[in-house]
């Protein structure tokens, strides 16, 4: 056993820790950089606006995947936003402190950890089979609602709990009903946090693949309604990589995905800063 001086171990530890910190950034930059440099060159208007040929060819563009992704975002968020915020309002403002509320909170936490593919099986069993939605955007969207609900609930609840108690008291003391207090005082004050949660969920819809792979069917055709099957951009990357030799197209689609995720990330940051400035009284 070599006896190292504290000064030496301090230096050694510091360089290791710095390495770990810098490495994590480099990993991110590497992944993003690799996909963008390899993929961006293949992105053209033609690539974006023609449909993939499907099957084993891997030829064509990604127009139907873009449309399917947009449909999916629209339907998922239309159901998820009211449901998630409503549920969060219940937990943050109405739920009494008892066993039942704790059970609900615990289920939310457990649900957040259930793997995507298990949600996929569930969605397949209930939406595709039992409710006869077949392989469709609707079945995929409903599955995603289940998957994303705990995340939106948690971020919205946290945002509402962060609203100071005196704001509630002020509104109630002015003769507002509880619901009016929620709508006119708590929701506006919690909006930055809620919007951050919503944007993250949109990112989740864009990034998700496993549960959609087993609920949306994966047809490469242009969806005609929310009852059509389809494949999102992420699922398309999977098909291209696994079933075709069109790895350049897979990288190009991956680059589109990365750009979308980056844009959503910037929107989130911008919105929360914008709201924070507004809340602190400057405007």
């Amino acid at each position, binding site marked *: 056993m070599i006896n190292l001086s504290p000064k030496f171990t301090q230096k050694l530890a510091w360089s290791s820790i710095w390495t770990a910190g810098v490495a994590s950034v480099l990993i991110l930059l590497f992944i993003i950089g690799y996909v963008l440099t390899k993929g961006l060159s293949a992105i053209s208007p033609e690539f974006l606006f023609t449909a993939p040929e499907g099957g084993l060819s891997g030829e064509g563009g990604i127009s139907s995947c873009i449309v399917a992704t947009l449909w999916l975002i629209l339907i998922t968020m239309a159901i998820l936003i009211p449901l998630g915020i409503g549920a969060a309002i219940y937990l943050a403002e109405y739920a*009494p402190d008892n066993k039942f509320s704790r059970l609900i909170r615990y289920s939310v936490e457990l649900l957040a950890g259930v793997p995507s593919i298990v949600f996929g099986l569930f969605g397949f069993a209930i939406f595709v089979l039992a409710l006869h939605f077949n392989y469709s955007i609707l079945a995929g969207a409903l599955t995603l609602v289940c998957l994303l609900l705990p995340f939106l609930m948690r971020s919205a609840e946290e945002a509402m709990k962060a609203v100071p108690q005196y704001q509630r008291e*002020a509104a109630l003391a002015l003769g507002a009903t509880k619901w009016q207090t929620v709508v006119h*005082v708590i929701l506006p004050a919690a909006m930055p946090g809620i919007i951050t949660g919503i944007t993250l969920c949109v990112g989740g819809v864009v990034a998700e693949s496993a549960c959609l792979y087993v609920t949306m069917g994966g047809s490469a055709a242009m969806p005609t309604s929310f009852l059509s099957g389809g494949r999102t951009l992420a699922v398309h990357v999977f098909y291209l990589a696994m079933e075709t030799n069109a790895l350049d197209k897979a990288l190009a689609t991956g680059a589109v995905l990365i750009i979308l995720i980056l844009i959503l990330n910037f929107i989130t940051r911008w919105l929360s800063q914008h709201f924070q400035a507004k809340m602190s009284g400057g405007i």
Partner: protein
Amino acid sequence: MDPKIQTKELGFYYGKVQALRKVTLDVKEHQITALIGPSGCGKSTFLRTLNRMNDIIPNTHLEGEVLLDGLNIYEPEIDVVEVRKRVGMVFQQPNPFPKSIFENVIFGPRMLGLNHLTSLDEVVERSLKAAALWDEVKDNLGKSGLALSGGQQQRLCLARVLAVEPEVILMDEPCSALDPLATLKIEELMQELKQSYTIVIVTHNMQQAARVSDWTGFFLLGELVEYNKTSEIFSRPKDKRTEDYITGRFG
């Protein structure tokens, strides 16, 4: 004249801890009633029972009665929202909403369903004038309420209460976060407001109670030790504990 608010044998519990013991007290109409006593004596808890603000604290319960114009506000069929409309409240920390001055004042009337823009303008002007804030903010009604100074914020909170046209205004140490000048302004305002409203104020500051109030109640350990005309309390306290407190021997 009948009292505006009467409490009868009022008791209040946080869980198993009793915070108020059999408090019986009459609040006279168009008078200022001050509640004094050391920290934790129950005076704020008592104030918050008068507009049922304690309802929102979990694991609490109340016994006895609080009569507003002779009606018990804790009867099951009484609507708590109606009570709070009639009995307004100004809090210790100025707590304007993160909205414009205009929106702050109009909050209460909006909640009551008043939405005609012309009358809203009138309400805002009248309330801000009554709270002696109009001249300072009339050109800046769109400014955030949080951008005002502490004293202005507290007067905004008062204006916000006045806009609801309550009958009683409860003030929970309204000046404790304010500087002496802002405090003076609020005290002057109270003298004007008592022509139209009944005011109950909790204060830490005995000089303030002596200056502004007509009646004073002294609380100690959840009990109302003594309640009388302010002049009487401060010149001829009947109870030894009251005398000790107002002469500064404890608290």
